[in-house]
């Protein structure tokens, strides 16, 4: 058998230089994604590229505030990504709620629900700040400190507990079922188990 650990430096380099972003703009920060991808900033120089499918993406950019409704989708999307995966929280709102610190529908501390590797402060962070965050993420990947996906596996119980506290038990099934009665032509009741 080949000892794949020998190739680790090569893999780390490739991971560092080829980060694919899940195209899930979760808040107002989505407006700064097009400038980042176009000629003034152009993050494709560093191999960063938006990708429509979470299955082949590495980097999850949380662009802005997160509402509980979006957080459910974020968690599902995050769990769909293959390891190793990284999360970059963008803006003040995922850090502590930002301007919505007293709002009833904005998550205050995102890292209670999914692990965050790098956070960028500011509202709205300038594209330069996001580039800086991506550079920082590259450094962390190189030194092996971007281990959010490992933390998520190790402390899964804790994260799961926080998520269930916020959304209530069995939220995944409830969310998947929520729209079925309205999609049927005749309004059918969905059985509760």
């Amino acid at each position, binding site marked *: 058998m080949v000892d794949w650990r020998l190739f680790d430096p090569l893999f780390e380099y490739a991971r560092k230089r080829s980060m694919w972003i899940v*195209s899930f703009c979760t808040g107002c920060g989505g407006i700064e994604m097009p400038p980042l991808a*176009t000629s*003034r900033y152009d993050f494709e120089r560093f191999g960063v590229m938006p990708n429509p499918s979470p299955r082949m993406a590495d980097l999850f950019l949380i662009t802005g505030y997160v509402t509980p409704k979006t957080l459910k989708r974020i968690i599902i999307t995050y769990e769909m990504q293959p390891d190793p995966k990284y999360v970059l929280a963008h803006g003040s709102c995922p850090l502590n709620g930002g301007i919505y610190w007293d709002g009833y529908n904005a998550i205050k501390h995102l890292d209670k629900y999914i692990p965050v590797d790098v956070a960028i402060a500011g509202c709205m962070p300038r594209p330069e700040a996001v580039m800086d965050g991506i550079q920082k993420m590259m450094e962390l990947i190189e030194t092996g400190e971007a281990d959010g996906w490992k933390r998520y596996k190790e402390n899964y119980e804790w994260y799961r507990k926080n998520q269930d506290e916020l959304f209530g038990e069995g939220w995944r099934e409830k969310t998947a079922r929520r729209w079925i009665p309205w999609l049927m032509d005749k309004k059918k009741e969905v059985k509760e188990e």
Partner: protein
Amino acid sequence: MVSQQELIREARENGMELLPLEKDTYELFFGPQHMATENYSLILKMDGHRVVKAIANVGFLHRGFEKLAEYRPWHTNIALLLRICVPEPDVPEAIYSMAVDEIMGWEVPDRAQWIRTTVLEMARVSAYLFWIMGLSFKLGVYTAGQWAAAYRERLMALFEQLTGGRVYHIYTIPGGVRRDIPGDRWLRELKDTVEYIKAKLKDFDNLLFENYIAHRRLEGIGVMDKKFALAEGVTGPNLRATGVAYDVRRADPYLLYPELDFEVPVLKEGDALARAMIRRFELEQDLYILEQLLEMGPPSGPYKVQDPRLKNLPRLKVPAGDAFAHVEATKGDFGAYVVSDGKNKPYRVQIRGPSISHGVRVIEQLLVGARLADVPVILMSLDNCPPDIDR
């Protein structure tokens, strides 16, 4: 490694039902993790590649602005409410300030009116460029989109010089604007930018608006007629594409618009192509308005109301009363209804985003019978902006 079969078996054992599907149709969850929808989800019932039924699932961006606004002082609300409309954040600032001006009984000085008009028009141009980017990405002609986003950067730089912020400007305040124009150099740069974008419109025509394939993709889909559009509360370019010449800048003039010369383009077809063309003509008109404003030059005088109450904004108290103000945004009629009970915080603020009618009922009806490939195009041709709906 868990195989799919095992997962299904496990789900059955745990008493979970699999999604009950009707015969020959399947469900498609279109968004929010999707390149075409951005924080907005459509639940589609599909038959092959035709949509049978569509339901808009909104609320991914709900932050409860209208409740939060009741907890914040009058001036702080500007920094809050502008986050409702991300592509053109000057619009919520302007309507909120106009409504507060009306309750306060303030006559905004000429210079402030000029600056407000210019900022609104710049926001319109940048929002239209952003929309061109969105449409071209959905149609697959990425070149036009990349160029549009690059031209928008020039306006962003100008906004930055004027207000200090790239995206969120927090510039229009009750009683005027927050600070004066930085100088003549800024005006010259704005003039250059307007000329530059005007010269580049030809590129967009070639790539997008006069392109054969783009026409084939856009024409005949998502057709609305006049009666339907009026009954559904459609406003803005979407309404004008059905033959109704309703533009708030003409129907309910505000700021400097009565003095400006511009046309309201109207088309009759009411399909996605007509909506796209209307927006393209309006982009030209907006550049023309900016040219006129620059020719007029900013009038001299103060840039905000000379009122002692403005000196201490956190202690600003607005007399009891209510007012409705609306402006023409690129998406449609953007309105604010502000109620005050004489305290230092608003009693009630309601923002009326145009997408609340476009993005829910209109899209649900237009999508029935559409092909899956047309779903993002129809969505983009309506210029649906989810935060308007969610607030």
